């Protein structure tokens, strides 16, 4: 790719001696002395709240590795600018990470909008990239390792529980953009698979803070539980209004709230009472591995507010990458990717999980995180390993064989699913 | 109202009589009224000026003189009534369309392009009437108005009197048929006022241009005009020669009462 650019450049300048000058194009080699990773995670702007633990976890993992002697005897350099929740800035910084710092692996981006903004750059450069946010699922892309839990994994643990516990009738509210819409489609599928029923749904604009009529509509349908894929600080207003409208007795299943933005810590109780989130990890998970990790985080970062689900995903994926590099015996991205694509077992703070080489997704130890009236967290039931089945079984995504760069949707043309509730 | 009835032709006739002999009135208003909020600034005014006339418009503060001007130039839209110019109903025309028909105006507060040079100010006016190279025309005008020495000064650095003259010069550069001057000598020295009066008289005699001048200073009015309209409380109060107006007890009263 770099060679290509140089050819473009020669053509453009038309300078006969430019070939000689090409040696002077030194920008690409800056910081190329040792292995470098890029950590491009939001620490300010809209996603600063949820991005900061991601940044901190990645840093912590790299620092631990360096203290331990590095990888293949080499210390790892870090390039960690602040993209400020701005997608154009992400594009610039990802280019910079790849071209100027020649990063060997990249952790970048909270929202799926950011992922889509940088995906062309990642693909063009065949950059090894870990996208760690829990997301709607379906990205089958040879350069991306989407190691966060997918909607199918999260909803797949929480919705069956809700149906068993509270009854079959659900009402869905979701953020009106790609993540929310696709998650809503998964909700339909999972409800249907588990004998549930969809009474109604509503898409909520991203900037909305007024949920009065939404709550009225929910009351009108009188569901057994609500499925919420609300996103961001604005939508958190729903939980307060739910409390002051007095409907905390209608339990909520969610794939988003609490596990990322730790609403149970930031909102005054009991607005999150009776909220159930399908998670693979949060800092309340009480296992030795988890506690060790959480302690290390707070030791290293004094003013850290929470260790969220995504932070853990960054943390274990750094170690996963380390193992792959060591097995490959080189930092060469293609070689490392080849190792990763053979699949790998990882001991993460959430427990032992597995990378699926064919789809670049992970199995996860899925739990139900529940808040009580004091916002104390418990995890009813046993952690359940859920595999990322959609791409492998339903779509047949097999990246080592067929290196694609696509995102599949549950009701898209290549998917076997049909909308079980076409009238709602 | 009675004062104007005798000498005003019905403007409607003038407007409809396009094919006939042109009315001597270049400008006429018919029942012109303007209200701002609760205040009636101009009340049912029938005002007319003959072509080639030099008319002075006087009246105490708040009599509505400047408002009347703005209604004539289209900067204000009348609440009711009509304005006729050269036999045409121009009530609904935009200001620039009225200027195109040969009006021109000097504002009450000196109004030039302050951050531009004097020459640029003149060019901006001159390019309205001159195609091609502006410089000969601009130089001529600068000389005519004795602004040549300050041509490269920024307009905001001019003295008050010079600023007034620059604005008059710009207004005249358009070669208008009718020029509206709102207090052209306000803030000028006596000498400067006399120069302006002389210039106006010359122009009045040598050209067929029509002038309407709002003026406060009755001595200046004396220097330039013998036809005077007195405006009071938004209505036409008197109209006549300067002598008649000077000797009118009621006019004195409104002036004393008004100020």
């Amino acid at each position, binding site marked *: 790719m*770099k060679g290509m*650019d*140089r050819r*473009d*450049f020669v053509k*453009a*300048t038309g300078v006969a001696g430019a070939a000689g*000058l090409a040696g*002077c*194009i030194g*920008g*690409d080699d800056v910081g190329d002395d040792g292995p470098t990773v890029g950590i491009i995670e939001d*620490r300010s702007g809209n996603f600063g709240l949820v991005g900061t633990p991601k940044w901190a976890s990645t840093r912590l993992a790299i620092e631990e590795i360096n203290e331990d002697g590095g990888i293949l005897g080499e210390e790892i350099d870090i390039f*960690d*600018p*602040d*993209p*400020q929740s*701005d*997608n*154009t*800035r992400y*594009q*610039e*910084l990802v*280019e*910079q990470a790849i*071209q100027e710092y020649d990063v060997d692996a990249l952790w970048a981006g909270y929202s*799926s*909008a950011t992922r*889509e*903004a940088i995906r*062309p750059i990642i693909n063009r450069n065949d950059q090894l990239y870990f996208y760690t946010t829990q997301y709607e699922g379906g990205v089958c892309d040879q350069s991306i390792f989407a190691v966060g839990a997918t909607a199918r994994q999260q909803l797949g643990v929480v919705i069956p529980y809700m149906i068993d516990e509270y009854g079959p009738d659900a009402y869905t509210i979701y953020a*009106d*953009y*790609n993540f929310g819409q696709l998650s809503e489609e998964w909700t339909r599928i999972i409800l249907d698979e588990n004998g549930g029923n969809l009474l109604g749904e509503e*898409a909520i*604009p*991203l*900037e909305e803070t007024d949920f009065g009529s939404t709550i009225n509509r929910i009351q009108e349908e009188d569901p057994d539980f609500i499925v919420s894929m609300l996103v961001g600080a604005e939508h958190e207003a729903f939980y307060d209004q739910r409390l002051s409208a007095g409907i905390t007795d209608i339990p909520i299943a969610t794939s988003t709230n609490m596990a990322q933005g730790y609403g149970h810590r930031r909102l005054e109780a009991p607005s999150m009472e009776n909220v159930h989130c399908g998670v693979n990890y949060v800092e309340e998970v009480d296992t030795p591995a988890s506690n060790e990790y959480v302690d290390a985080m707070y030791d290293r970062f004094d003013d850290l507010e929470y260790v969220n689900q995504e932070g853990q995903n960054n943390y274990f994926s750094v170690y996963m990458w380390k193992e792959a590099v060591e097995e490959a015996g080189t930092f060469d991205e293609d070689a490392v990717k080849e190792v990763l694509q053979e699949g790998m077992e990882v001991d993460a703070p959430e427990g032992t999980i597995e990378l699926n080489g064919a789809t670049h997704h992970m199995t996860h130890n899925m739990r139900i995180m529940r808040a009580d009236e004091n916002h104390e967290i418990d995890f009813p039931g046993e952690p359940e390993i859920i595999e990322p089945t959609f791409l492998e079984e339903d779509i047949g995504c097999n990246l080592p064989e067929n290196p694609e760069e696509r995102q599949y949707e549950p009701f898209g043309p290549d998917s076997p699913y049909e909308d079980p509730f076409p009238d709602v | 109202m009675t004062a104007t009835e005798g000498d005003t032709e019905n403007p409607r006739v003038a407007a409809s009589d396009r094919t006939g002999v042109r009315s001597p009135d270049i400008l006429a208003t018919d029942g012109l009224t303007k209200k701002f909020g609760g205040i009636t600034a101009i009340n049912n005014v029938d005002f007319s000026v003959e072509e080639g006339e030099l008319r002075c418009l006087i009246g105490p503060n708040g009599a509505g003189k400047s408002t009347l001007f703005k209604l004539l*130039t289209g*900067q204000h839209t009348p609440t009711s009534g009509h304005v006729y110019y050269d036999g045409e109903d121009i009530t609904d025309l*935009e*200001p*620039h369309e009225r*200027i*195109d028909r040969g009006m021109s105006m000097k*504002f009450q507060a000196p*109004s*030039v*392009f*302050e951050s531009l*040079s004097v020459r*640029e100010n003149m*060019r*901006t006016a001159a*390019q309205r009437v001159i195609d091609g190279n502006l410089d000969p025309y601009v130089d001529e005008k600068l000389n005519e108005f004795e602004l040549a020495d300050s041509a490269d000064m920024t307009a905001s650095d001019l003295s008050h009197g010079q600023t007034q003259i620059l604005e008059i010069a*710009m*207004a005249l550069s*358009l070669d208008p048929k009718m020029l509206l001057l709102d207090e052209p000598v306000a803030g000028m020295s006596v000498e400067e006022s006399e120069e302006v009066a002389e210039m106006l008289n010359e122009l009045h005699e040598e050209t067929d241009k029509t002038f309407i001048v709002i003026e406060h200073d009755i001595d200046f009015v004396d220097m330039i005009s013998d036809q005077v309209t007195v405006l009071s409380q938004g209505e036409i109060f008197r109209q006549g020669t300067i002598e008649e107006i000077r000797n009118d007890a009621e006019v004195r009263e409104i002036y004393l009462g008004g100020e």
Partner: protein
Amino acid sequence: MTEAVEKLRSAFSALNGPNTYGNGRAFWTAFAVGLVAVFAYPMFVGSYSAGQATLYLLYGFLGLSLCFIWGYCGVLSFGQVAFFGVAGYAFGVVTLNFGAEATVPAALAGVVIATVVAAALGYFMFYGGVRDVYVAIVTLAFTLVMYTFMAQTAGREWAIGDARLGGFNGMPGIPNITLGGTSFSGATFYYLVAVLLLVTYLGLRVLVNSRYGRVMVAVREDEDRAEMLGYNVKLVKFVVFTFGGTLAGFSGVLYASWGNFIDPSVFALSFAALPIVWVSVGGRESLIGAVAATFGVQRLDQELAATGSEWALVIIGALLLFVIMFMPKGAVPYLDRYAKAGLGWLREKRGAGSDREVKAVDSD
């Protein structure tokens, strides 16, 4: 032969006038040096850095568009990014439907749609009697409306042909501008944008120093006076605003092609404020100031972000506040004054050259 020289001379003189800073030999010498630097830049920093710099260059059109309408005609638009965004989306929609071969007609379509939207909004405002600071409010409201609307177009129903608007996730996969089989990216795109920007800059110089430029400046200085000189102020503002939309639209097309992506953040308040920042910092009555400040501010912003410092945004804000407080007319007029004083001093010292020449060097 002499005729050609004469033609060249008159073409050059059309570039200069009282409405631009920098008209003399000193300015043009510095300009030539700067130009050489701009064109040599990719040879020293490499294709990647050139690609980065392309972003700042293409923002230059956006900066120029606001400088043109605000600095020269006194119309403060808070909505230049709306035209920028509309054009970018239009470019995306056309190219995603018709492929990379269609980038030229797509670019045209983008610019035309931005122009039409600007014309419609301009007509609403200027013929509706909206003036002064209300123009800023109305254009800002329009931009925020576009933001909210585009952010919620994620559903499958929001598609034009094969192109899904994509809501908050935006529209990925927009191809590079392709001309005669050459796909412009990296250094080639840099040169394309640099040449276009140069041409646009020179064209705008001619325009603002022309008769029409004089009318624009008259409207900026005093609308009533300009109107009483017989200028159709509403029409002038409408035309200038519309053309500003064209320039902003052009910027948007280049942007979509640069990042192969566009999303609703182009309509966000934080982006909408940027052109105002650039133009204020550079000096709103200075075209070169707008371009230079666009480049400078964005570059600095990026450098600060790359440090990862939490103080980056505070520093940017403080810098802006400083400039707007202490150089109210912007950096270029400020520099111009000092350069002029410096040159005058130099000439005095050498005892050579008349005042007249100093004037020729540095305009009035």
